């Protein structure tokens, strides 16, 4: 155990105490903070007049006092309160709620019912930003009329798709565009971890230092320590990235409090648009850890059967393709609306690392579905570990130069045949 801990800490220090690690993280940190706050940064430098949004408003007065100019008063108050919007009255004949959601010309419909001294107010608008700013000006107008009293507000939202209750079409389009960005850090982290592991093992093997090492620690300890060091590195690197994310959010809040902008950030967009954002993040992290372990075991296996650096570069190609494949699936499947394919790949270990969280957030698989997928990955991990650990023990000290599959066949025979 002492030697295992030492090997893990040695492997970890070897990566972390490098200038390249510090410099690359500094650059990544700056980029993350900048990318997440791009909307806020742009808003600082852009001309405010460009941002003025026209909003068509219709007010229907079904109360006991139809003589009171509700519509003109509300539009006037709205225009006085919000500079970034221009509110205009719009001629619209209200029939029912469904017909409002089907049309596209009118942005806001406000319906007053009952007694105007304490009316029931229905607010219809698909625009979430506008929806959140309407009640205060309306109440101001009502105060002018009624002295005191608070209306009953019923804020209506667009009807949801029956198959996908948590996600609107707009949110889905947002995800399509942002999917690649979401999984880019995962993809890079896994590539980095597998590369480090493979290069580390092949460096020891090709230099023959492995004989001195295996003469001191069992091959199994060496194998597990390399994987543990790599996954620890991945977790540390992820924590650093999350740290940068938190800093980015703090910077975003700074923009908000300084009034320089509305404090728009990608994180707040995610949180606003995706109702199960927390579960998604948790599953993404779990899939990243177990999925990476799966890839690391494969990388360790490939490095152990390789004899030179060149050998390893050649052998690891399928692994990289597998990673690239699952990353591309997260980009293209949502764009192509290939929900069935997305569903299938969400359950296939290796691919599921990135596809399953995406399938979950887009509503293609349920909570139970993603849990099953996670257990499938863990099961595969245990199985692969059981198969590869004995092969690693045999292959790591062997310098067979035969062809790839012949080599694997030979090592498997040696690993599972008792002499």
């Amino acid at each position, binding site marked *: 155990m*002492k*030697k295992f801990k*030492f*090997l893990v800490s*040695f492997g970890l220090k070897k990566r972390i105490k490098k200038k390249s690690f510090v410099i690359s993280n500094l650059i990544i940190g700056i980029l993350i903070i900048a990318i997440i706050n791009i909307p806020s940064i742009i808003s600082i430098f852009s001309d405010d007049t460009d941002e003025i949004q026209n909003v068509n408003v219709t007010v229907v007065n079904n109360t006991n006092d139809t003589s009171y100019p509700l519509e003109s008063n509300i539009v006037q108050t709205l225009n006085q309160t919000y500079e970034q919007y221009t509110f205009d009255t719009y001629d619209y004949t209200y029939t029912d709620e469904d017909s409002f959601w089907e049309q596209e010309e009118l942005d806001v419909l406000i319906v007053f019912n009952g007694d105007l001294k304490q009316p029931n107010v229905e607010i219809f608008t698909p625009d979430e930003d506008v929806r959140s700013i309407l009640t205060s000006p309306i109440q101001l107008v009502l105060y002018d009329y009624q002295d005191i009293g608070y209306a009953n507000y019923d804020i209506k939202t667009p009807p949801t798709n029956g198959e996908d209750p948590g996600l609107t079409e707009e949110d889905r389009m947002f995800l399509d565009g942002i999917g690649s960005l979401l999984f880019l850090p995962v993809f890079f982290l896994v590539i980095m971890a597998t590369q480090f592991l493979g290069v580390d093992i092949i*460096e*020891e093997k090709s*230099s*023959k*230092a*492995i*004989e*001195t*090492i*295996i*003469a*001191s*620690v*069992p091959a199994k300890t060496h194998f597990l320590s390399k994987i543990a060091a790599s996954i620890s590195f991945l977790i540390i690197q992820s924590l650093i990235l999350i740290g940068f994310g938190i800093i980015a959010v703090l910077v975003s809040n700074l923009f908000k409090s300084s009034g320089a902008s509305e404090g728009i950030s990608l994180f707040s967009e995610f949180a606003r648009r995706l109702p199960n954002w927390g579960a998604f993040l948790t599953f993404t992290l779990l899939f990243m850890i177990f999925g990476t372990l799966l890839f690391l075991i494969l990388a360790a296996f490939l490095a152990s059967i390789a004899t030179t650096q060149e050998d390893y570069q050649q052998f690891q190609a399928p692994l990289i393709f597998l990673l690239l494949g699952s990353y591309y699936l997260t980009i293209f499947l949502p764009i192509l609306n290939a929900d069935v394919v997305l569903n299938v790949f969400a359950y296939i270990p290796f691919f599921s690392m990135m596809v399953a969280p995406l399938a979950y957030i887009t509503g293609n698989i349920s909570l139970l579905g993603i849990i099953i997928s996670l257990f499938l990955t863990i099961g595969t991990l245990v199985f692969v570990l059981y198969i590869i650990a004995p092969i690693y023990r045999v292959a790591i*000290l062997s310098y067979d130069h035969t062809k790839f599959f012949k080599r694997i066949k030979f090592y498997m025979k040696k690993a599972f045949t008792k*002499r």
Partner: protein
Amino acid sequence: MLKVNNVVLKYDDFVAVNDLSFTIKPGEIFGLLGTNGAGKTTTFRVIMGLLDPSEGEVLYFGDKVGYHNVDEIGYMIEERSLLTKITVKELLLYFGQLKSMDKELIIKRLDYWLDYFDITEYKDKKIKELSKGNQQKIQFISAIINDPKLLVLDEPFSGLDPINTDLFVKAVRKFQDEGKMIVFSSHQLDHVESFCERIVVLEKGEAIIQGDIKQVKKDFEKLTINIKADVEIDKLESLPGVYKVTNNSDKISVKIESDNYVKGIFDYVKSCENVTLFDVEQASLSEIFVDKVGGKREKI
């Protein structure tokens, strides 16, 4: 004490080591000789527990060699097996801690051995910046950093100049004086002859010569007679027991089958003029090696 008992190592039908047995006592230097592919490195791997023998066993003080006692063993492999991208200090800290050593002790011993080999200035240099000879020294230090009770050295002198070879020999002798067991292989038979008491010569995995060097030489009956005199080569070659005559620039070397034929040759040389040298010497280890290994190969 290290006991190798009837060790056999097979890969399918190929027999890498066949029924090998020998014992090494504390304070003994044991030589393992053989041509390339004879099974020396495989034998070392079996001793180190890196390969499980198909038959037989290796006992280290009565116990099987395993990861519970491997920290008491030092192993230097034939090829340079160093991580070249890290410094000498980092490498020794790595290998030393794999032998369960404390950092302070590693540094203390590293300083001692760097000073011994006169390479203290390389402590913080990367391995790849060192010459091959100095890399060999570092590899040797990595094998002895844990002050092992058993030192396994696979070709320790390859690539070393005579001065550095002498330093290595002295270091190995120091371990011998401290009662450590040393087993080593070498192609340089003069080294084996100079400081081994006992040897095993392997050929195709089998021990073809084994035992005390003096006895091995004694048992080998063939002798060499060096002569300086006005002799006729043809006449010498025709004498009984002579199987080879070599006319060197300064002397004539006559190989004979056994000491039974010395008198006949001496009688002939006595009859010649200008006799200044008649010296009978035992065959060298190198000659025995060539004779035995060559013979074995011819049979095969």
